[in-house]
């Protein structure tokens, strides 16, 4: 067997699998997005974008990602650094911190709903402490800020661990000798973090951020549980086009828009965190 062909042969099954279950549906969705029954058209996109809920759901999605992802980045870096410095009990802490990963996003939304709703934990705690006389409806249309905060909290609680595990693995790969060298040559703990950890963590940061940002644009179930229709997001709109309005073409068009946004941000992340040519990490 020609050894040059062997690698291609070995990746063939995966490629076929992806081809059948990803590329083919993708082509179908694209077809739907660019047609209204007749030939090629951009009408679907025009309709979707000019609908009054598009700007608000676009804004909400972006705002949520813009607040949640940087916070998660900082948090997960902090947590990963702390875990990596631990000698004993490190695995236990990591398990506890990653518990939310095992919970579906709808369940996560419901957990936080149980905290924030009118008969929820927060209300009973506050009335128990005598802070309020009557239960408050935190998640009502009068409190858009609280809804936003609740959603952001739930998202942070739910999905920080996915970045954490990637970063912990990445930090574990950095040889200890580099830190010792940096220390001997006068780098403070903060300088060691910025001059050694961050640059050498770039590949892991890329992965973690791409994954997290793409997930952030796909936020749906947590928002549905906590905000309902009060906090429209892009994924929710796709859902309602598809199942409430029975408009496959519009749903497909909006899905492609979300895909384009994801690709755009992925490229930006890869570009910003690229490893300089020649440097090996």
């Amino acid at each position, binding site marked *: 067997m020609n050894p040059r062909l062997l690698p291609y042969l070995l990746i063939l099954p995966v490629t076929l699998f992806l081809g059948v279950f990803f590329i083919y549906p993708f082509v179908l969705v694209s077809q739907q997005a660019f047609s209204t029954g007749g030939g090629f058209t951009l009408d679907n996109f025009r309709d979707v974008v000019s609908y009054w809920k598009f700007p608000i759901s676009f804004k909400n999605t972006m705002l949520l990602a813009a607040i949640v992802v940087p916070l998660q980045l900082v948090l997960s870096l902090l947590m990963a650094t702390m875990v990596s410095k631990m000698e004993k009990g490190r695995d236990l802490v990591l398990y506890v911190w990653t518990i939310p990963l095992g919970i579906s996003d709808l369940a996560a939304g419901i957990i936080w709903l149980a905290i924030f709703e009118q008969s929820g934990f927060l209300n009973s705690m506050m009335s128990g402490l005598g802070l309020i006389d009557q239960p408050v409806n935190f998640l009502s249309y009068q409190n858009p800020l609280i809804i936003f905060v609740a959603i952001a909290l739930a998202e942070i609680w739910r999905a920080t661990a996915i970045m954490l595990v990637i970063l912990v693995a990445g930090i574990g790969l950095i*040889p200890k*000798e580099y830190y010792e060298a940096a*220390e001997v*040559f006068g780098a403070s703990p903060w300088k060691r973090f910025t001059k050694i950890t961050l640059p050498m963590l770039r590949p892991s940061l890329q992965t973690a951020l791409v994954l997290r940002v793409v997930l952030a644009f796909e936020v749906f179930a947590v928002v549905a549980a906590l905000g309902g229709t009060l906090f429209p997001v892009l994924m929710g709109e796709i859902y309602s086009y598809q199942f409430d309005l029975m408009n496959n073409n519009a749903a497909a068009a909006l899905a492609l828009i979300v895909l384009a946004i994801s690709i755009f941000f992925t490229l930006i992340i890869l570009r910003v965190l690229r490893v300089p040519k020649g440097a090996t990490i």
Partner: protein
Amino acid sequence: MAEIQIKNIAKTFGDYTALHDINLTIADQEFMVLLGASGCGKSTLLRIIAGLETASSGEVWIGGRRIDHLSPKDRGIAMVFQNYAVFPHLTVFENIGFGLRMQKLPNDEVTRRVERTASLMHIEQLLKRYSGELSGGQRQRVAVARALAMEPDVILMDEPLSNLDALLRMEMRAELKGVLAESKTTAIYVTHDQVEAMSMADRISVMYEGNIVQAASPIEVYRNPAAEFVAGFIGNPPMNFLRATPAGDGKWTVAGQNVDGPTSGSSPLQFAIRPEDMRLADSGFSATVKVVEPLGAHLLVTCEVDGTLLRAILDSDLSVNRGDQLTLAPQSDRVRWFDPETTLAVA
């Protein structure tokens, strides 16, 4: 002035004692080599001096200042790591300048010093490269240049040449010694290669299981090993040992021969002689040749004397064959004696 004083340093890891009460003074600008077998605590001692490890007890002084409570950067030291630890995400220039940048030196000063040390180490043409684009020897030079650029009082090196091939090692050995002598720094150099130690050191500290057994000039360590371990570790092949029983009056019986030895003592001793200090003679130990290894310049002969194997280095012109009977005489002023109880040398 950067005299290093190590006072009563001990280090335990859990219930394992890696260093027992180490005392050592290294003079200003001296090139001190820590030599010992793998696992004897060389790196641990070096890392304690560097501040990367905390001693369980004891003190370290540099230039009359106690430094064991200071962080590594305040100790006036620079270090060359065993695996170089050249930062892969920085260019050679930024690697060499790393410590200078941390000191917030102005740009032109950093450039000046980096270029000077780079040319000292003959790597000025590599400054724009990354470490992944360098050979092992070049990376080694970068690691040394990074340390030299700090203009430290003390430079610590942990087996810096161990990853290089034999030829490059020999070349770097001479070069490194020259550069360090020029820079007037005090150097501590860890190695388990005795040739490296002999050829580079002003003084060698031979370590064994967490102790310094002997600290002396290379020739002293070679000629007058302070303990059996040193005698058996230094020299290739190392010293030969034969059992000696007292025959009274400063005479000792070694392999059936009477030999002059220590005048006192009534318990058996170890008689020791280097392979090159034996020659063929009319009277001496009778030896049966077991193995003959021609080494070009010499003949390395392994023979059996009194039930023990003994190695002698003889002239390569001789024709010696397996099974021959030889009479070997030790050069009397090169004979050394060790007490088997304490393993220490006996005068």
